C-alpha cells in the first residue's frame, strides 16, 4: 500500500500564529523531498475556504490519495479537513494532522528549534499517513424516548420540551414531588416573580402531557447500552422496577446547600435565630417573617458567601446568593419597613440581565452594607443583657478597617451551592465525570456546554455548576434541542475509530473487562472471548494497551501507524543530536 502513496502536504501559517515562530516554507521544502510526497504547499489559513478548496482540487487534479495538514490541534480542525477530503471523494480517514501550533509555535520562541520540531512532527505525520486505511462509519438506530433524571426546574423543562414535541419522556424524581430547589423558594430575583407560579405552570404542563411519564420516589440504578440504545433500570420505592429503552439521558440532578454548621463562628445550630436562606424562604412563603419564638425582628443581618468563595470550603462563587440577599433586603423592608437590615458581603456580584439595576434599587432601601474579608466570616454571639437585640454579629469591616458589632434578631446565612454528596454514584451509573468540586463535566466549556464525554448523556442545570433559573432553563432547552436533533434523524453515526477484538487471538483472560471506562466490552462465557461494542467505544485505547495477547486493535491507532509516527519524529532529530 505505501508504495503507491501520493501524499499532499499542507502547512498552515495560521496568520502569524504559526508563521511568526515556524518557517513554514522551510518545512515545506524538507517534506517535499520525502518519499511518497506528491505536493507540498504552505498557505496563510488552511482552514479557510480557499485553503480547503486547495486540498480538494489537488486531490482531484494530482490524484492524491493521502493528505497531511500541519496546522492546529486536530480537535480544532480535523473535521474541517476531513470534509475537504470527502468533497474530493477521498475517505476522510486518509488524513493526518501535525499539530504545529498548540504543540509547537505557541510554546516555543526559538524559530530555528521550533522549525526543526515542526519538521519532525510533519515527518511523523507523513510516515504515519502512509499506513492509514479508509474506514467507514457505522450506523445505529436511535430510540425516541428520553430519560430525564431530576424533577427540578431544569429536568421539568427538558421533559416538557420533549413531551410537547411528541417524544416519549420518563421523568425520574427521587422525592415525592416535583419542583426541586426552586420549589423551596418564595420570590425570584431580580423581577420578584413567584417561584411557585413558575413551577406550577411547568408542572401542570408536565402532568397534562400524555407523552410524559412521571416516576416519583424513583431512582436510576443501572444504565447499559450506548447512545440511541440505552437500557435504563429505574427502581421506584414501593413500586415496580422498570427496564426502559431510551435513546438519551439528561442528567438534571441539581445541587445541595452548604452545611452552615461547618463554619462554627456563624453560630448556626447553636442560636435558633441564625437561619439559612432556605429557612428564610420557607418563612417568607408562609408569610411569617418572625424570630424563632414568634417575635417580629427589629434587626436582620444577612451574611453572604457562606461556604462559597472560601478556599477552606468551596473556592467558587455560588452565583445566585448576592441577588437573593438583595431580594431578602427588599422583601424584609417591604414587610417590616421599620426593621434595620444589614448586608454583610465580600464582593457584590450582581451581574447578568437586570442585576445591576436590582442592586441599585435595593441599595436605596436603606440597607446597611458592610464588607468583610474573604475567608474571615463574621462571628455571631448572644447579645449582652440590656441590648435591644438577641444577637451580635462581629464584623471586621474592610472599608473602614474597624471591628463592628452589628445588632441582629435574625441572622440569615446565604448558604452556597455544592455538588450533591451522592453525585459520584450518578456519575458512575451514567458514565460521566466530575470536577474537583463534584460538578459534572461538560464536553467543552464554551462550545458543548450540555454534552458530556459519554455520547447521548447530557447535563443541564446546577448539577453542572451553580447557576440561576434562566441559565438552568436555557441549558435544559439546549439539551432538549440536542436530543430532538438526534431523534429527528432516527439514527446515529458512530465514529469509525473504535477498538476491535480479534476472536482468533483473544485468550479470554478477561484483563480488559473491567478497564473500559465506557463499559463497551462484554465477555461471552460460553465462547470464552471478549468483544467490543463499537458504538459504545470511544477509542481511548485503554484496552488496547492492556490486552496481553495483542488481540485488541484500535482502528486508526494501529501499532504499525504509531511506530511509523515514532520513527518519523526521530528520523531527523537523531541526525541532529549526533
Amino acid at each position, binding site marked *: 500500500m505505501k508504495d503507491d502513496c501520493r501524499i499532499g502536504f499542507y502547512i498552515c501559517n495560521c496568520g502569524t500564529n504559526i508563521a511568526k515562530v515556524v518557517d513554514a516554507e522551510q518545512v515545506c521544502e524538507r517534506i517535499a523531498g520525502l518519499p511518497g510526497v506528491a505536493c507540498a504547499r504552505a498557505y496563510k489559513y488552511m482552514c479557510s475556504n480557499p485553503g480547503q478548496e486547495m486540498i480538494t482540487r489537488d486531490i482531484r487534479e494530482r490524484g492524491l490519495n493521502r493528505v497531511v495538514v500541519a496546522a492546529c490541534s486536530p480537535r480544532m480542525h480535523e473535521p474541517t479537513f476531513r470534509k475537504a477530503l470527502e468533497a474530493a471523494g477521498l475517505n476522510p480517514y486518509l488524513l493526518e494532522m501535525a499539530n504545529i501550533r498548540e504543540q509547537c509555535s505557541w510554546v516555543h520562541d526559538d524559530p530555528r528549534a521550533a522549525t526543526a520540531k515542526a519538521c519532525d512532527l510533519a515527518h511523523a505525520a507523513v510516515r504515519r499517513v502512509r499506513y492509514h486505511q479508509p474506514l467507514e462509519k457505522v450506523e445505529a438506530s436511535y430510540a425516541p424516548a428520553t430519560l430525564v433524571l431530576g424533577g427540578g426546574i431544569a429536568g421539568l423543562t427538558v421533559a416538557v420540551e420533549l413531551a410537547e414535541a411528541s417524544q416519549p419522556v420518563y421523568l425520574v424524581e427521587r422525592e415525592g414531588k416535583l419542583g426541586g430547589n426552586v420549589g423551596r423558594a418564595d420570590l425570584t430575583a431580580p423581577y420578584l416573580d413567584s417561584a411557585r407560579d413558575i413551577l406550577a405552570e411547568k408542572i401542570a404542563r408536565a402532568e397534562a402531557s400524555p407523552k410524559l411519564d412521571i416516576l416519583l420516589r424513583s431512582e436510576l440504578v443501572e444504565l447499559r447500552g450506548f447512545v440511541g440504545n440505552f437500557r435504563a433500570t429505574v427502581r421506584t420505592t414501593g413500586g415496580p422496577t422498570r427496564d426502559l429503552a431510551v435513546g438519551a439521558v439528561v442528567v438534571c440532578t441539581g445541587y445541595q446547600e452548604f452545611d452552615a454548621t461547618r463554619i462554627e463562628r456563624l453560630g448556626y445550630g447553636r442560636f435558633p435565630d441564625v437561619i439559612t436562606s432556605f429557612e428564610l424562604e420557607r418563612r417568607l412563603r408562609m408569610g411569617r417573617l418572625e424570630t424563632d419564638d414568634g417575635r417580629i425582628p427589629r434587626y436582620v443581618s444577612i451574611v453572604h458567601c457562606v461556604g462559597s468563595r472560601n478556599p477552606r470550603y468551596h473556592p467558587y462563587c455560588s452565583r445566585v446568593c448576592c441577588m437573593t440577599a438583595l431580594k431578602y433586603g427588599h422583601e424584609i423592608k417591604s414587610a417590616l419597613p421599620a426593621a434595620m437590615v444589614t448586608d454583610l458581603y465580600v464582593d457584590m456580584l450582581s451581574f447578568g440581565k437586570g442585576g445591576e439595576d436590582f442592586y441599585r434599587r435595593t441599595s436605596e432601601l436603606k440597607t446597611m452594607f458592610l464588607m468583610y474579608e474573604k475567608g474571615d466570616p463574621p462571628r455571631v454571639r448572644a447579645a449582652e443583657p440590656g441590648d435591644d437585640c438577641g444577637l451580635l454579629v462581629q464584623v471586621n469591616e474592610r472599608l473602614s478597617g474597624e471591628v463592628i458589632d452589628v445588632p441582629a434578631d435574625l441572622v440569615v446565612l446565604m448558604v452556597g451551592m455544592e455538588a450533591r454528596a451522592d453525585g459520584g454514584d450518578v456519575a458512575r451509573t451514567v458514565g460521566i465525570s466530575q470536577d474537583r468540586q463534584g460538578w459534572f463535566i461538560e464536553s467543552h466549556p464554551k462550545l458543548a456546554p450540555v454534552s458530556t464525554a459519554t455520547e447521548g448523556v447530557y447535563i443541564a442545570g446546577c448539577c453542572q455548576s451553580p447557576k440561576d433559573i434562566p441559565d438552568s432553563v436555557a441549558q435544559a432547552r439546549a439539551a432538549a434541542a440536542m436530543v430532538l436533533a438526534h431523534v429527528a434523524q432516527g439514527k446515529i453515526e458512530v465514529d469509525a475509530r473504535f477498538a476491535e477484538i480479534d476472536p482468533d487471538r483473544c485468550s479470554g483472560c478477561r484483563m480488559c473487562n473491567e478497564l473500559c471506562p465506557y463499559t463497551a466490552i462484554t465477555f461471552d462465557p460460553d465462547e470464552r472471548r471478549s468483544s467490543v461494542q463499537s458504538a459504545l467505544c470511544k477509542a481511548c485505547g485503554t484496552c488496547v494497551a492492556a490486552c496481553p*495477547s495483542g488481540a485488541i486493535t484500535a482502528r486508526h491507532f494501529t501499532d504499525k501507524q504509531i511506530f511509523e509516527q515514532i520513527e518519523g519524529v526521530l528520523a531527523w532529530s537523531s541526525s541532529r543530536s549526533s
Partner: protein
Amino acid sequence: MADRKLQVALYWGAACGGCDVAVLDTDAFILDLAAAADLRFWPIAVDGKYDDVEAMADGELDLAIFNGAVRNTENQHVAELLRRKAKLLVAFGSCAHLGGIPGLANAASRDEIFHRAYLANPSLEEGNVVLPVTEKKVASGTLEIPKLYRRVHKLDDVVPVDYYVAGCPPAPEQVKAVLKAVISGKLPARGSVVGCSERAVCDDCKRRKEEKKVKRFYRPWQVLQDPERCLLEQGIVCAGSVTRSGCGVRCPNSGMPCRGCYGPTAGVRDQGAKFISAIASIVDSRDPDEIASILGQIPDVMGYAYRFGLPAATIPGTARSL
C-alpha cells in the same frame, strides 16, 4: 524423502544444555529419529569437529537445530556456518528464539559483568585479579578463545531463521512434532513458531477467570492459593496472559505461575512491555502512592517481564550494554 536419510545437525550456543536434554527427553522417539536421520553434528551426543561441518557442501544438511543465544564470536561463526550448510535452520528454545535467560545479561554492560565475575566475585582468592583475554602467545604459538560480545543476541539477529521452537525448554511433544514435520515434509509457513497456538496460555488454562483487580501481589510461597482460580487474580504474578500457549499449561497446572518462556503471542512484538501494561492495568487503586506500593511488591519487574526475551525487546537492554 524416504529413500534418503535426513541429514541433521544440532548445536548449542549460549545455552544451559537443557534444550539438548529436551531432545533426548523424547525417549524412544529418539530411536525413530536415528533411524530416519543421520546425526551429522551434535556436540552433546556425537563426536565431531567444526572442520567436519566446514567440509560439507552448502545446503547438504536438511535441518540444523540451533539452541542457545549468540553471545560470542564462536556462537556467531557456527550460526553462520550452519545457516550455509543447512536447508532449514530452526531456532530451538527460548535462548535462540528470544535471547532467553542469558539475554538478561543485557541489563548490564560487559565491563560490569567482567568486573563482577573476575574481580568482585566473593569466591575469588584474595589478590586473584586475572581477566580473560582473547589472545595469548605461548611457546607453541598463539592461543585464541572466542570474543565475548557486548550484548547477547537472539539467533535471527545474526542469521535468517526458518522456524522457531519456543520454550525453556521446549515441551517433548513439540520436539517430536517438529522433527516429524520435517521428516514427513509437511512444514508450516516459514517464520512461524512451530506447534504453538496464536493465543495466550490463558486460553488453554482451565483455572476460573473472573474480575482482575489486585490490591496485593504475592510470590507463590507467600499465599495459600485457590487451585481453581486464575493465579493473577489471586495476586500471584503469572505471565500466562502475555505468553504464547503451546506448552500444555505445565506451570499453572502445577500450581506455579507461568514464567513466559514461550514468548509473546502472535499479535505482540514486545512481551515484557505487554507484561508491564497488563500488570499496571489490574492494580486496584487510583492513589499514586498506593499504586507505587502495590507495584513495589513485585521484585525485579524488569527481570520478570523480560525473563526470556530482553534481546527481543523494543528497548533491548540498558544504555550501558548497547
